[in-house]
């Protein structure tokens, strides 16, 4: 192995495994000096996750969240795989499930997942929602076959916990406690005019958008949405999709779908 690669691997190993094998350093007090790098690296990763998951830091407190991040960074598979820290931390929600001390907060993983999707929406490419006239121009014969492309910032999520109530507590620490009961939550995250929106919707509406996002036709999406015992109004569903600017392209049968749909 080349010397530089060997040294860099040793540096890495000392940073995360605390090998304390610092024989590559010629300076006095190598441990004290090296700890500055180790501290900066860990602190930068903690700060990055705190920015991406502010609600988790609010819900469990700085000390606990920082400590969990340190544990998170003990596994190579969790460490940044790019030089852009905005990409870091996608599997943090799943990691939270592995922390025994957090078992009493079962919704934490779902809330973290929701925050990650907001983070993705924030950084998603821009897109231009199609004009209402394009919808009016659809020929009757095509209605059964057209599909839609969701804007890149659209992500869907569901949970068996009342995430919208939990979200209110995150936003307002004086909010009253809510009894933690299992209550299905359906949400859609998207960015409109640079603001991130979360739409907490009934299951039917959610299924409608989910099917549209996965390339189903309008008719197939409506049938899927009406398949559950939940009143779904197709007209209201279409209005919601348009007003929320969840789709940016009408795709006619046989047309190439440039870009892919996004759903969480």
């Amino acid at each position, binding site marked *: 192995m080349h010397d530089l*690669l060997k040294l*860099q691997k040793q540096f890495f190993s000392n940073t995360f495994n605390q090998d304390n094998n610092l024989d590559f*350093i*010629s*300076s006095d*007090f190598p441990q004290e*000096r090296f700890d*500055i790098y180790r501290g900066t690296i860990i602190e930068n990763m903690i700060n990055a996750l705190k920015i991406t998951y502010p609600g988790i830091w609010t819900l469990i407190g700085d000390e606990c969240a920082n400590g969990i991040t340190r544990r998170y960074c003990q596994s190579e598979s969790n460490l*940044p795989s790019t030089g852009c820290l905005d990409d870091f931390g996608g599997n943090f929600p799943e990691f939270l499930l592995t922390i025994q001390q957090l078992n009493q907060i079962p919704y934490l993983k779902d809330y973290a997942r929701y925050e990650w999707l907001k983070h993705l929406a924030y950084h998603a490419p821009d897109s231009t929602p199609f004009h209402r006239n394009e919808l009016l121009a659809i020929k009757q014969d095509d209605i059964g076959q057209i599909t839609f492309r969701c804007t890149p910032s659209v992500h869907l999520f569901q949970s068996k916990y009342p995430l919208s109530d939990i979200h209110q507590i995150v936003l307002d620490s004086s909010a009253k406690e809510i009894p933690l009961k299992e209550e299905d939550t359906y949400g859609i995250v998207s960015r409109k005019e640079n603001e991130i929106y979360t739409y907490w919707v009934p299951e039917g509406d959610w299924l409608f958008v989910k099917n549209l996002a996965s390339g189903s036709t309008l008719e197939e999406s409506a049938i899927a949405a009406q398949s559950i015992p939940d009143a779904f109004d197709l007209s209201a569903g279409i209005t919601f999709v348009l007003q929320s600017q969840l789709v940016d392209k009408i795709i006619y049968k046989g047309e190439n779908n440039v870009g892919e749909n996004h759903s969480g």
Partner: protein
Amino acid sequence: MMALNQLIGIGLRHPHYKQVLEDLPSIGWFEVHSENFFANGGINAQLITQVSLNYPLSLHGVGLSLGSASGVSYEHLARLANLIERINPQFVSEHLSWGQVNGIFMPDLLPVPYTQESFQVLKQNILITQDFLKREIFIENPSSYIEYHASEQQEAQFLVELCKATGAKILLDVNNIFVSASNHGWDAKQYIDSIQKGLVKEIHIAGHSTKTLPNNQILRIDTHDSFVCSEVWDLYAYAIERFGSTPTLLEWDAEIPALSVLIDEASKCETYLSSYQKQARQAHA
């Protein structure tokens, strides 16, 4: 407010984004961390476009890891090239450092040993970068807290030779020279003297903090969280004397004060720049 010398810039950080676009303060240029603007959409993309329409911009990278034996990431280069295409910066810079090994990135600017092997690695990575971006880049001297047994060369000499071999230029961080010189017992002025005049295209100044080692020695840490100390101003004066009027940037990345405080601090460069410019004019007369 008096118009600042157009050579003087400040690092643009999140707390000041909105104010800068609203007030359009009198400042020569702004520098941003490239990676904060990699996204092709959203508010940051719009912001950097707006700033680029009003000010010259410098893109300062912290994540390319030019010193990695594992090579540079083409995905990272593509994102950087995309950003350059969008905002047409006046400068693009990176560091004489590494942070990535075998595809895992440690978010810090880690020093390389100054060896022949490191030289070849950095040379290759810088050439790849410049070729990919189709432009010259500036390489910033790092601040460091350790030295390696393996090092065979002094940092300044290594950096100069590297720039000569690649056509890259130097972003001279005067605070980093002061920090590293103090931490390793180097001669800061000798460091500056060993760099040829035409190589330095940008200068950084910043504040730093200190830590006391067990033998009561002061270790200086490049935290960018305070005012520039008098020793660094003295070294800046020395650098301007040697390299002439050079675009100079104040970095302040933690405990970030009000924008007016940053501009006031950066404006102190004016004394040194105008003094040099006056001397230069007199020499020509």
